[in-house]
């Protein structure tokens, strides 16, 4: 695969527990819809109504595959001067953010993320185009990453 290989720093993949988090979110919604479809079929007594939950299950399965592929492609690397974030398989991208351009760092975690011990680390620069969020960083690592980023940002802080 002739895609971006970073020689300066190793890619650190995000936690696989992110798959669990995303799949839970997906299947809670899809599962409810499927149950609804099955109940609908039972109430109406029409066999063709069952195609709805079946289609939903198929879509859910496809999304599951996509989530697994996406999460395994998601990684970050801490270079000497820049942070690199890699994401996506079908629509893939690599974002390079210099530490000196960093305006602030967000660490976010929802209830499900907290249960699984995950957090999202997001870097903000002065540009709205910078899409440098790393989902599924283990919580303790996220705090350390944030501190490292802040220290490096301060050391290399440039004006706008």
């Amino acid at each position, binding site marked *: 695969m002739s895609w971006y290989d970073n020689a300066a720093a190793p890619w650190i993949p995000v936690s696989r527990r992110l798959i669990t988090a995303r799949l839970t979110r997906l299947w809670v919604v899809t599962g409810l819809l499927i149950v609804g479809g099955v109940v609908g079929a039972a109430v109406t007594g029409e066999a063709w109504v069952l195609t709805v939950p079946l289609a939903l299950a198929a879509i859910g399965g496809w999304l599951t595959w996509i989530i697994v592929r996406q999460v395994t492609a998601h990684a970050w690397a801490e270079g000497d001067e820049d942070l690199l974030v890699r994401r996506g398989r*079908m*629509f*893939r991208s690599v974002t390079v953010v210099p530490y000196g*351009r960093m305006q602030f760092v967000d660490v976010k975690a929802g209830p499900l993320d907290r249960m699984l011990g995950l957090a999202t680390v997001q870097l903000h*620069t*002065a*540009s709205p*185009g910078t899409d440098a969020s790393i989902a599924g960083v283990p919580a303790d690592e996220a705090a350390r990453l944030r501190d490292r980023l802040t220290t490096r940002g301060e050391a290399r802080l440039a004006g706008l």
Partner: protein
Amino acid sequence: MNDHIYQAPREWTRLHPVSPLLGGWAFFGILLAYWIHNQLPAWVDGGDEQWAFFDQFPLLWLIGAAALAFAITIGISVWQWRRTEYRIGDDAVYLRQGIVTRQQRQARLDRLQAVDVVQPLLARVFGFAAITVQVAGGDKAGVALKFLRLGDAEALRNEILALAAGITAGDDAPVTAGAEPAPASSTGLRDHLAERTQALRDPEALLAGRERVRTAVAAAEEREVYRVPVGRLIGSIVLSGPALTLASVPVIAVGVALVAHVDVLGVLLAVVGTSLVAIVTALAALLGFFWSRLNGGFGFTAGISADGLRLRHGLTETRRQTVPPGRVQAIRLHQPWLWRRRGWWRITINVAGYGVDDQSTDTVLHPVATREEALRAVWLVLPDLGDPDPAGTLGRAMHGAGDEGGFLASPESARRVDPFQWRFRGVRATERALLIRRGRWEKELFVVPHERTQSLALSQGPLRRALGLANVEVHSTAGTVRPVAAHLAVDDAIALLDAQAARAREGRRRQSPEQWMRAVGLETGA
């Protein structure tokens, strides 16, 4: 009537007492517009129900209600004015305001991006101006002071710029070396009126924004670089897409009538009858476009001074912008296809804090530039392009094709996704800036100084992947310029990303300090 030198206030000070009267009118305008908007369908239908509501009251009551509404508006404006105070310190401009929720805001001078002196029509007639100080850091980070006397506003702007430039102020107002201390502006009411009468007697100067104001703190000396003739500006508006759309409507109608033998008048009346509101809205949008282009580009003058880039423009609302050196984040030169024969370019810039939508008047560096002026405009922002032959390189960036002149071009496989302009796409890095070119009929060129690159991204979807292509995006601050180098060969794109990251790193190291006068050692300490 004492002749005191205007001093930018170090203590909390209110704005000029006339401010509530100048600002409140916009509210009425909005109210009126809203009311007309609501009334429009009723008038079209010819229905009288809307008026029936008013008919039940005697006329006197209505006048009384209007007067009350007016008094309330003025009262609120005055109250707001009383609660709005500002002061400047050595490192920030402070503003506190608000009736119910108090808000205090400071614009830090070391984050200063631009200072504008804006005069809406009414303020302009009476010789007042608003100051807006743009700082880096978020959408609403700037401070707007509405209103001050024009002379005071200019003096305040000069002082803010002097402080931000790193010229430390003593007890006296800082005076630029060699410049005469200008006489005071903040004189009595009678002098102010005399000044206004003089200004009104010479409306030319007023309209062209050439009006001289006396300020306490001398403005940095300025040299004019270009000025846009009114004729060319009007020509550029006539040759724009919306104008063409407007002109093509009757042509298409007549064409359809001739070919299809339809009763045009009947159809027209039917269309107008059913969708008058939509037509009026569309017309208003078109007129709005023409107006913003005309108003924003009228009398456009650009100059260079020690405080940076100075832009002046405006027909009814004038704006005098000062953008200190190194604050322009990215430049976009755009040539719509109708302008191609004339060789005109519209040049917009990204400055943190300035407007983000395409019609904002504050992001324009040149509303309609000839080729020569376009080169000069780029030079104004980037005096050193980092190239031995800047004019030649920029010329190839504006008109070239393929890999001529050291440009990195799209590979032939890009033809599949981009059949018309793939040969015209090109990227080239000079020592100081990245040039990204595209367009066959409608041309576009981005210039991003390396030290202004915020971050970079490499992206690829399934289609580009199959063709071995990728995009490189250069992220700039929020604004009208969003540079992308599209459809490069993957290996080229990866190499460009790496090289650009290294160049941006190098650029940041070389970056001039925020206090631009310190950079050239022009420290004038107290």
